[in-house]
């Protein structure tokens, strides 16, 4: 780049002239832009194209941008191919004038953005709660009228949610039972209180760990599957097809899943409680020789049927949260395949968040 200057006279405010180089292509443009920017801020400027022979679209874009940013800059001697190319260059549409909230980069814009994001979240929560209410309504109507759901679909879902989830739930809960027992027994033995391992494992499993772990496993396995399936149906227009057939998709698709999870969870919880406690029994037997019968006797001193029942109720509520949360994410997805993946991930996060929130509420109620 060889910028040239012709007789600057600051007193007369005559425009400076920047003689542009013969070659004006993408490699030259950034440096030239900085030069133009610097000079344009000092006063009027003329860009002289008389020596330009080689150019590309970046040069035209530069002229366009400079004219827009610095109205005092003038381009002269654009002739021949350069002039024709300049005329055919299609200017990028200008972004719409921002509203008062979106103007500037200061605190106003920051708080405007935060407020917008907050309102979007509030709207999403509102839609989710509305869907939760709708699902309860659809479930009630279905139980009364037995219409609007494909026959046998509930059993298909029960097979998937219950039978197919059974091995992974049992395996993980057993391992959690073993882990919690090993870590606890070491501490309890310091005080000669090894025997209380039974109380600890029993209470922790029945009231907290089994419901929480089962809910999280359901979120990952069942919730992700529901979102992936429903969002694919949305993308493939199957949900639209249901609607135009007079079928309410929110009922047809969600009610069997809600019924299935309600039936599957008690069975899962019962088995999970058994294997979790069995993990504790095993550790107690192997570490300090506590007999299984003694373990169970000790456990029953501090654990009652109400603990089992509360654990069951909690897990059913977690299951509903997983189904409605993942169904909400699935049915409100956009229309692209990319969004299916995003919705599936978001559904797992939403389900686990809901589970932890609900668990927190139960903690206030129970303790």
């Amino acid at each position, binding site marked *: 780049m060889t910028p040239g200057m012709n007789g600057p006279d600051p007193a007369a405010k005559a425009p400076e002239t920047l003689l542009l180089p013969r070659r004006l292509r993408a490699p030259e443009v950034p440096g030239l832009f900085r030069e133009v920017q610097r000079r344009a801020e000092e006063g009027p400027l003329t860009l002289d194209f008389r020596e330009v022979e080689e150019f590309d679209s970046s040069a035209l874009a530069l002229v366009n941008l400079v004219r827009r940013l610095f109205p005092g800059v003038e381009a002269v001697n654009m002739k021949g191919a350069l002039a024709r190319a300049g005329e055919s260059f299609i200017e990028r549409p200008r972004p719409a004038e921002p509203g008062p909230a979106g103007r500037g980069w200061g605190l106003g814009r920051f708080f405007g953005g935060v407020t917008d994001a907050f309102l979007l979240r509030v709207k999403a929560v509102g839609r989710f709660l509305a869907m939760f209410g709708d699902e309860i309504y659809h479930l009630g109507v279905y139980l009364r009228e*037995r*219409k*609007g759901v*494909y*026959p046998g679909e509930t059993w*298909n879902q029960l097979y998937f949610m219950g039978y197919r989830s059974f091995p992974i739930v049992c395996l993980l809960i057993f391992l959690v039972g073993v882990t919690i027992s090993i870590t606890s027994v070491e501490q309890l033995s310091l005080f000669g209180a090894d025997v209380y391992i039974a109380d600890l494992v029993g209470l922790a499993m029945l009231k907290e760990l089994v419901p929480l772990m089962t809910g999280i496993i359901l979120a990952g396995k069942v919730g992700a599957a529901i979102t992936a399936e429903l969002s694919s*149906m949305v993308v*493939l*227009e*199957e949900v*639209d*097809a*249901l*609607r*135009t*057939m*007079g*079928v309410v998709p929110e009922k*047809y698709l969600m009610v069997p899943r809600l019924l299935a999870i309600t039936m599957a969870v008690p069975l899962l919880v019962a088995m999970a409680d058994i294997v979790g406690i069995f993990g504790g029994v095993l550790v107690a037997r192997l570490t300090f020789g506590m007999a299984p019968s003694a373990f169970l006797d000790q456990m029953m001193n501090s654990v009652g049927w109400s603990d089992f029942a509360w654990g069951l109720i909690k897990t059913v509520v977690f299951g509903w949260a997983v189904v409605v949360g993942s169904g909400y994410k699935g049915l409100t997805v956009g229309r692209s395949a990319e969004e299916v993946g995003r919705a599936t991930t978001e559904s797992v996060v939403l389900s686990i968040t809901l589970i932890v929130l609900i668990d927190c509420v139960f903690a206030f109620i129970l303790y």
Partner: protein
Amino acid sequence: MDIIETRELAVGYGDVRVLDELDLAIPAGRISVVLGVSGSGKSTLLKTLAGLMPPLGGEVRFAGAPVDYYSEASLRTLYGKVGVLYQGGALLNSLTLAENVALPVRMQFPEMPLGVVEDMVHSALAQVGLASSAGKHPAELSGGMKKRGALARALILDPEVVFCDEPSSGLDPITSASLDDLLLSVKETFGMTLVVVTHELRSIERVADRVFVLNDGRLHFCGESADLVASEDGFIKTFFLRKDGHDDT
């Protein structure tokens, strides 16, 4: 008599108006073709007419009565009168073809005797030439078979209007022509109204009674298919010439 009328209809997504100020009159018992380049808003218009998307402005009247897109009862009435053939068929993958076709009947009339449903399904599938594939799942069907199956599902409850979203897309010319024949036979046999969204020139020539051409967010042309072919309008001539070239390649 016009079964669907629109007045100053605006359709689109969010605040974006894809089509504006549409005054359409879709005649009963005939095949109306909505034509336009990709992205001209054909499918969006179809979804609005079928009750799946509320309009951004204006009014839609179905059989003389205005459609209230925010009233569940009004939409339910509309859904009871229309069938839709979606671009990809939109058959439910978890059900067999017969179960898919039976779905509208079993959902809307759960008390319908199973034997009646089975007969209805067989008849509908036979009409589209798929009676022998009743037990197959959508994944086992070809593209043309899926569309014919979806047409059978759209027709099973004898709707007054069937909307077809690009029925020929992705099909070879022979399969496409047989689907066109099927649409013609539906019109002639049952006197149904069909609204077909397409940009396939051959389909338009074969099936269209009335043609609506969309361009630049507006209704560009409305008339009989013969008028369209004879039109001297620059856009239409360009469109047809290009489509001709495209189809022949």
